[in-house]
Structure formats: structure tokens, C-alpha cells
């Protein structure tokens, strides 16, 4: 069966003051229908840019797809016309953003904002769209949806606003839902509620999910496969459990062990946190033909600075772009 989304050798360039920088460099992956895949990495690694490019929402005049292809159900998106993209967005591919306060319009009620999506994409009448909005709010578990539908965003809590965003994104039953750090601004108990909701919706509607996050815990809870990004490049891809069990890229290893985890039962011993020394390279260095992680890597040898590492495949579909992947 054809994958739902197929990205091949994607390269996205960003125009900066210092010149052109490849913020996504040779990225390929496939997403099957109903699958949940997760992108993780530090800020500036290109996670969000990937999402924006799939949506056709790259910042105009600054970012552009330089080469490669994005195929949605066999249809090429990089060359698609604007009206066609507008048609796809919301209908087939939709997105939830990180900050639920700034991504809702403060001067319209949440009901109007959800209904707008339905009217624009599905041509529903005002009344039908409004009723549908109530149903959707109910589906994302907002208590007393019938009266909350006329609330303004400021009258809702952060968790409720994020639910409204999800309701809006799901209004047209998209085939792909892109969630860009959907819980970063929320408390842990609310985060757990949102994750539960996304899991249930995925089970009920068969929507494929692309989750963008920096939290390995969230990846483990939500996704089937994970793509670890570093400085615009894919560092490692593979099944979540397998990668957490045995990461083959030093950066993945670092990402997992640099965060203190709560083990059950907790013991007197405190794990030493692995530091990833230094900081991410600047945009100017992104295109270099060497391993961009080398300056922060404990496994660094002379090979790493000479050429960009080739992908090394392991069983189960795990692929690590590292010269020392076999040894790790």
C-alpha cells in the first residue's frame, strides 16, 4: 500500500542575513495511514519547519523548498497551486499549534471559530456548522459544550483552549494531524488529559498523527516511530521502544539521559545527568559536509569532521546517521 505521506530528500532553505542556510537538509520519511510518528530535537533543529513545509506554510519570501518532494496520497505538494493547498489544509491535513492563546482569535467566540472551518471547507450552513461545533466541543471533552460554545478564548483555561484547537483541527476529519508541541504550555495533569484525548481520537477516527516535541517521555507515550532531528538533519529514525532501549546515535543517547527520569520505585541513588556540552551550531554552519554534532560528541573521531555520516540501517527499520552507529 502507498504511504499516506511520503517525503523524499527534502531540502528547505532559509534566507538569512548571512546567506542561504539549509534548515532541513535531505530529510526522507514515510507516514502510513493511522500511524503516529514523532519528531524530537532541541529548538532550532528544524522540527517545526518540517511541519510548516507539509502544510505549505513556510514563511513567504524567507523559506522555500529547494529540492525534494512531499507527496500526500500520491499527490505532489511542493508544486501544488495555492488554492489546492488551501483546500488540503484543514480538510486533509491540519495542525495544532504550541500556544493555544495566540493561535485563537480573541475577538470571536470559540464556536464561531470552529464553525468557520466547517463552513469554509464543507460548505455547511451557519446553523449546521454551529451544531457541529457543539458536537466537536463535546467530543474533545469540554464540559457543558452547549453553553461553552459561546465563550471567548479568554474565558477558558489553557487546557480548554488547546481542546478547542484540537476540535478545530479535527473538524473536517483530516487524515493527518500535525501537533506542534501541543502541551508545552500546559501543566502535567492537563498534558496527560490532552494526550489521552489525542490517543482516543486517533483510535476512533484513524487519523495519522505527527507529534513534534522535545520531550522523550511524550514520544514514548504517544508515538509508534520517532525521528530524532539535529541541526536540520535526521540523526536517527526507528520504532520508539527500540530506540529508547538502544539508541544508535550519540545525540539520541544524550537526549534520553540528559533528563532526570522518575523511576518506580525511586531509590536513594541519583543518576548522573549526561551533559551534552556546548550548544547547537549556528545556521551558518548547517550546510557543512561533516557531522554537525561532532563538536558536542564524546565519540568524535577524525572521520566525523571529514564527511557527512552515511545512514546505517539496523533491523526493525532503525536507521542512524552516524559514523560510529555500529559501535554504539
Amino acid at each position, binding site marked *: 500500500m502507498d504511504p499516506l505521506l511520503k517525503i523524499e530528500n527534502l531540502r528547505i532553505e532559509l534566507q538569512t542575513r548571512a546567506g542561504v542556510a539549509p534548515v532541513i537538509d535531505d530529510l526522507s520519511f514515510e507516514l502510513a495511514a493511522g500511524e503516529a510518528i514523532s519528531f524530537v530535537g*532541541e*529548538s532550532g533543529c528544524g522540527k517545526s519547519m518540517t511541519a510548516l513545509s507539509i502544510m505549505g506554510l513556510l514563511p513567504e519570501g524567507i523559506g522555500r523548498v529547494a529540492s525534494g518532494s512531499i507527496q500526500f496520497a500520491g499527490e505532489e505538494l511542493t508544486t501544488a497551486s495555492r488554492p489546492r493547498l488551501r483546500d488540503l489544509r484543514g480538510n486533509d491535513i491540519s495542525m495544532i499549534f504550541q500556544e493555544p492563546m495566540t493561535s485563537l482569535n480573541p475577538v470571536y467566540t470559540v464556536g464561531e471559530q470552529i464553525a468557520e472551518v466547517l463552513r469554509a471547507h464543507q460548505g455547511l450552513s451557519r446553523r449546521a456548522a454551529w451544531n457541529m461545533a457543539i458536537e466537536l466541543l463535546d467530543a474533545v471533552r469540554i*464540559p457543558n459544550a452547549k453553553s461553552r460554545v459561546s465563550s471567548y478564548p479568554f474565558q477558558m*483555561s*489553557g*487546557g*480548554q483552549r488547546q481542546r478547542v484547537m484540537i476540535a478545530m483541527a479535527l473538524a473536517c476529519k483530516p487524515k493527518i494531524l500535525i501537533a506542534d508541541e501541543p502541551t508545552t504550555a500546559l*501543566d*502535567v*495533569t*492537563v*498534558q*496527560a*488529559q490532552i*494526550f*489521552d484525548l489525542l490517543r482516543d481520537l486517533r483510535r476512533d477516527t484513524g487519523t495519522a498523527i505527527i507529534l513534534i516535541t*522535545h*520531550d*522523550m*517521555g*511524550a514520544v*514514548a*507515550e504517544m508515538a509508534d516511530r520517532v525521528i530524532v532531528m539535529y541541526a536540520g538533519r535526521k540523526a536517527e529514525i526507528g520504532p520508539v*521502544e527500540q530506540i*529508547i532501549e538502544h539508541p544508535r546515535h550519540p545525540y539520541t543517547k*544524550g*537526549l*534520553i539521559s*540528559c*533528563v*532526570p*527520569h*522518575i*523511576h*518506580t*520505585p*525511586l*531509590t*536513594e541513588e*541519583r*543518576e*548522573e*545527568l*549526561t*551533559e*551534552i*556540552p556546548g*550548544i*547547537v551550531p549556528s545556521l551558518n554552519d548547517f550546510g557543512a559536509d561533516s557531522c554537525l554534532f561532532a563538536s558536542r560528541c564524546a565519540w568524535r573521531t577524525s572521520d566525523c569532521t571529514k564527511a557527512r555520516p552515511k545512514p546505517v540501517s539496523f533491523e526493525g527499520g532503525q536507521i542512524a546517521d552516524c559514523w560510529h552507529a555500529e559501535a554504539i
Partner: protein
Amino acid sequence: MADPFLQVDNLSVHFALKRKGMFGAKSVLKAVDDVSFSVGRGETLAIVGESGSGKTTAALAVAQLVNAAAGSVKLDGEDVLGVQGDALRAMRERVQFIFQDPYSSLNPRRRAEDLVREPLDSLTDNTKAEKQQIVDELFAAVGLRKEQQRLFPHQFSGGQRQRIGIARALATRPEVIICDEPVSALDVAVQAQILNLLRRLQTEFGLTFLFISHDLGVVQHVSDRIAVMYMGRVVELADRLSLFNSPRHPYTKALLSAVPAVSRKDRAARQRILIPGDPPDPVNLPAGCRFASRCPHVMPICKEQEPMMQNVGTSHLTACHLTEQEEAAV
């Protein structure tokens, strides 16, 4: 626990709210309500809670950056709450603060060395040469190079800026440092650097930490004892192992169960406890227990009477009617 070095008793912070209309009643938001805890010398007490629980306000009140409505704060047995003038400056010399956001807490128009020296200028009478020597030592202690002293904040990365914030907090050789979410604005890989640094500095300088955080993973890593806050109240206070391994308050249990686990083993061992809904309106708090509206074990008494903190084991305190009954039954 060693003798309490920092002792906070019945601390309350109230914020007056704007009247609703000209004849509206004056209302008060009780951000921190009757909170007590103590920290031993060289110990780390973490305060955890979700946004709006009052953890930062409590810390600000201890540092006298907001005014407390009631209560007392004792530093080494000496009451420091509400002191003014020279006594306040003496207290500030001993209690310093690390802020959450390394971007907005550093003056963008001052050089790194000036920022670190500022507490020395305003709180001590050291000579210029002495101050310079202290600044040099601090830059080395937090892992910054000497030539970076002349740079401005925007020339540093987030992690480096937080190092400047830490160096500034250490400048007067304080005994207590209040860390308000010191790593939550940083990338995960940089968090580890700062957490390890704080830990090293604690032993090196013999510091007592009051550590505010919402991240339970970080809290279990840094703390000796933990206070869990909900809606302005401490609901559970215990040492690290007993809080994480045998939490007693339903809110603490729910909070712990909500943290995503990375390993499959930990995920299987965990029992998910869902707390539906949102916290109550902090201005019109319900009678009784503040957690009652979301608690899976709510009983009639919970909606009438507010539970008091009580001992449920060696230095394990919790405020819940259910554990009260469980304890009585044993």
C-alpha cells in the same frame, strides 16, 4: 532533618483585586494561604505545583520581593520577614534569587561583569579590587571564560545567560539561594548542564536551596525534601523517597501519575489517575478541601471542612481527610 535553617511559618500572601464597579465588594486573591515549611542547612527543599498553585509567590515572599500578609520567616532563628533598611540589606546578602527566564532577568544594557558585580556594589563595602577578584572567581566557578566578562547578555546563549544569573546570585556569598524554575526556559540538553552545575555549587559553597519547579523529574533529581502545593496550600510535605514511592495525598498521586515515562518498565508500573476538570476559581474558593472538586476519593466531609496538615509517618505530612481516616483506622 538537621536543625531548620530557613523556617517559614503560616506564610500568607494576598493580592487585592480590582473592585467590580464602584460599589462592588473588594475581593482578595489568596495566592499563598497559611504555608509552613522548613529547610535544613545545606539541604534542598523543592516546592512543586502546577501554574497558579502559589509556589513562585511563596518563594518571592520568602525573599521579600512581595509583601506577606501574615506569617514569619526565620533565617537561622532570626526573624527576617518585614525587616527594613540595613537589616533588609543584610538579609538580602544572605538570601539570593535565581530567576526563571534568563532572557528578561538580565539588563540588556549592562556587561556581564557589571551584572555579576551589582549585588556586591549595593550590598557590600568591598574595595574595587576585591570585587573584581570575586567576579573573576565566580566566572570560573560557573564555567564562563574570563574574556566573556566584557560581553553583553545578547551575546550569550540561554544556558550561558543562566550561568550569569547563577554567578550573580552567588556574588554576596549567600547561605540560601531560591531557584525559581531555573531550567524550565532552557533546552533539555542545556538543562542537564545547569542542574549539574547547581549541584556542584551546592557542595562547594555549602548552599541551602529552595527550589521551585513544576517538573517532577527535575525535582526528584535535585531535592532532599519536597512540598507539593495546590491552590495556595501545601498539601503534602515529605522527604524525596517517601513522597515519590508512597505519596499519600490524591493530588500528589495524580501529579506523579501524569508524568510521561520514557521506559516501558516505568510505564507499566505506573497507575494512571485521572483528575478531570480544572482547578476552582482562586477568588471564590469553595468551602472545605480545595481539591475536592477534582478528587477521585471525595467524601462529604471534604466539601465542608478544610483538612489540616498532619503526620502520616516520619516527617511525612499531608492534608487530606482520607489519609486522616486511614491513619485513624490503623
